[in-house]
């Protein structure tokens, strides 16, 4: 059976839809990771995050990550979805997940999806503080 993959860059993430996308009659386990805007970074209060992307490339990289995951593990469904634009504290910015027959595969794949997304996908995050804003990880 062909694995079904959902790859998206969106303005707003609806977290409630991901389980339906990952659910599959041959899957006993679904693992989902949601990243959201945290109020504090190294004790400084974050007002919001702003995300931008090189969309054509980001979608290609996300598809490569899904392919790599489905070569490493036997997965029935994979989702990678990232939001762009301005996000307030508490808002979801990324959701990734996988479903598989047994839980080992979906846990390991889910961790791989978010780790590799953060390493490779061309998306940039600016932290907006009260009196300044900073592109995250841009400088040493």
């Amino acid at each position, binding site marked *: 059976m062909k694995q079904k993959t959902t790859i998206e860059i969106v303005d707003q993430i609806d977290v409630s839809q991901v389980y339906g996308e990952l659910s599959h009659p041959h899957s006993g386990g679904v693992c989902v990771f949601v*990243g959201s805007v945290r109020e504090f970074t190294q004790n400084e209060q974050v007002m919001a995050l702003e995300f931008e992307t090189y969309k054509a*490339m980001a979608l290609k990289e996300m598809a490569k990550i899904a392919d790599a995951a489905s070569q490493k593990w036997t997965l029935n469904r994979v989702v990678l979805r*990232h939001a762009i634009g301005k996000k307030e504290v508490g808002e979801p910015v990324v959701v990734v997940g996988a479903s598989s027959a047994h839980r080992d595969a979906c846990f390991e794949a889910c961790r791989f999806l978010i780790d590799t997304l*953060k390493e490779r996908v*061309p998306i*940039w995050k600016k932290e907006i503080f009260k009196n300044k804003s900073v592109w995250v*990880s841009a400088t040493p």
Partner: protein
Amino acid sequence: MEVLLFGIAKDIVGKPSFRFEGEDAPPSSVSELKKRMKAAFPELERLSSLAVAVNSEYAEDGQSLKQGDEIALIPPVSGG
């Protein structure tokens, strides 16, 4: 030859893309592109890393560039 700019690279250059034009030939390889961009915008040297994408794929330093390629500077990514 146009170079797409994102994130801090866009802020450093001050616009969303940069064009090699006029008398100088455009850069013929990824490494030459990086060298010339850093010479024109020294603040790019401060970045933790600087990658280049050609036709929306990460490109090695040795890769050659030709007219019509979609080229982009990729400063350190920070999604998620």
